[in-house]
């Protein structure tokens, strides 16, 4: 498994644990009333699961196992590693930005918080487009 795929998969597992931890706290909150902020992280927790865990795992595994380019077709057999790292950083910066600021935005509608959350959406969309660009040519028959 190449370093980029390992990084995607390890990050995915960290989000998996973090999202389940948050989910456990949210369940406890329904019983014990731990704090208002736990009711504001519902959307963030959902995104940690769907984007941070499942989508990121799919991206990492696809980068690892999809058919590689033939010699001479591309400079690198799995496509541009630089683009792959850009996808990784963009996706995770977007996810973390959203996770950190969206709960505060739901409690206080400050424009600067809205701007940061909007930026998180743009970063994640750029990561999705970058991944599509990176992997498209490798969706092809095996040798």
């Amino acid at each position, binding site marked *: 498994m190449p370093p980029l795929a390992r990084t995607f998969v390890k990050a995915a597992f960290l989000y998996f644990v973090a999202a389940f931890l948050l989910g456990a706290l949210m369940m406890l909150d329904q019983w014990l009333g731990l704090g208002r902020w736990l009711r504001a992280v519902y959307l963030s927790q959902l995104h940690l699961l769907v984007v941070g865990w499942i989508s990121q795992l799919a991206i990492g595994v696809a980068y690892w196992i999809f058919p590689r380019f033939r010699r001479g077709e591309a400079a690198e057999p799995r496509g541009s590693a630089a683009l792959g790292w850009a996808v990784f950083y963009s996706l995770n910066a977007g996810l973390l930005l959203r996770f950190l600021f969206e709960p505060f935005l739901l409690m206080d509608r400050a424009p600067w918080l809205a701007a940061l959350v909007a930026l998180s*959406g743009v970063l994640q969309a750029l990561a999705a*487009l970058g991944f599509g660009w990176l992997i498209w040519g490798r969706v092809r028959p095996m040798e």
Partner: protein
Amino acid sequence: MPSTSRICVRASLAYLAVGAVLGALLLINRWLPLGAWVYALKISHVQFLIVGWLTQFILGVGWWLFPPLQLGRQPDGTMARRGQATRGSESLFWMTLGLLNTGVLLRGLGAPLQVWTHQDWPRAASGLSGFFLLAAAIAFVLNIWARIRALGRGA
């Protein structure tokens, strides 16, 4: 990767791109109001990413990589060769893709159109989408079931 999986995975990548851009629009709308019409895209965003991207990607990769059907003698006496014939019914897989994408598009386009046009037909389209998705799920499970098996000696 067989052509069936290639179409499936490429369709899923297209949904990923569209779904993520819709998500960005929804978040930008919280900062710079683009209009009330944007809120109606939330269902499309969720549907495109959960079913169009993730589910369809998993179906495509599963169809490609799961263990092949047991190799055996065919009715004409020849041995089945590895490849498409040992993946299951190709026509049923195409039907699965057709049903899944019809369901995703009916729901993903019907829900916002219902809000924007106040017409009844998008509501009907959206309402029917669930049956297309259910049929796709049943067709795929029937097709892949026999391939969920041990592979190799002692497995």
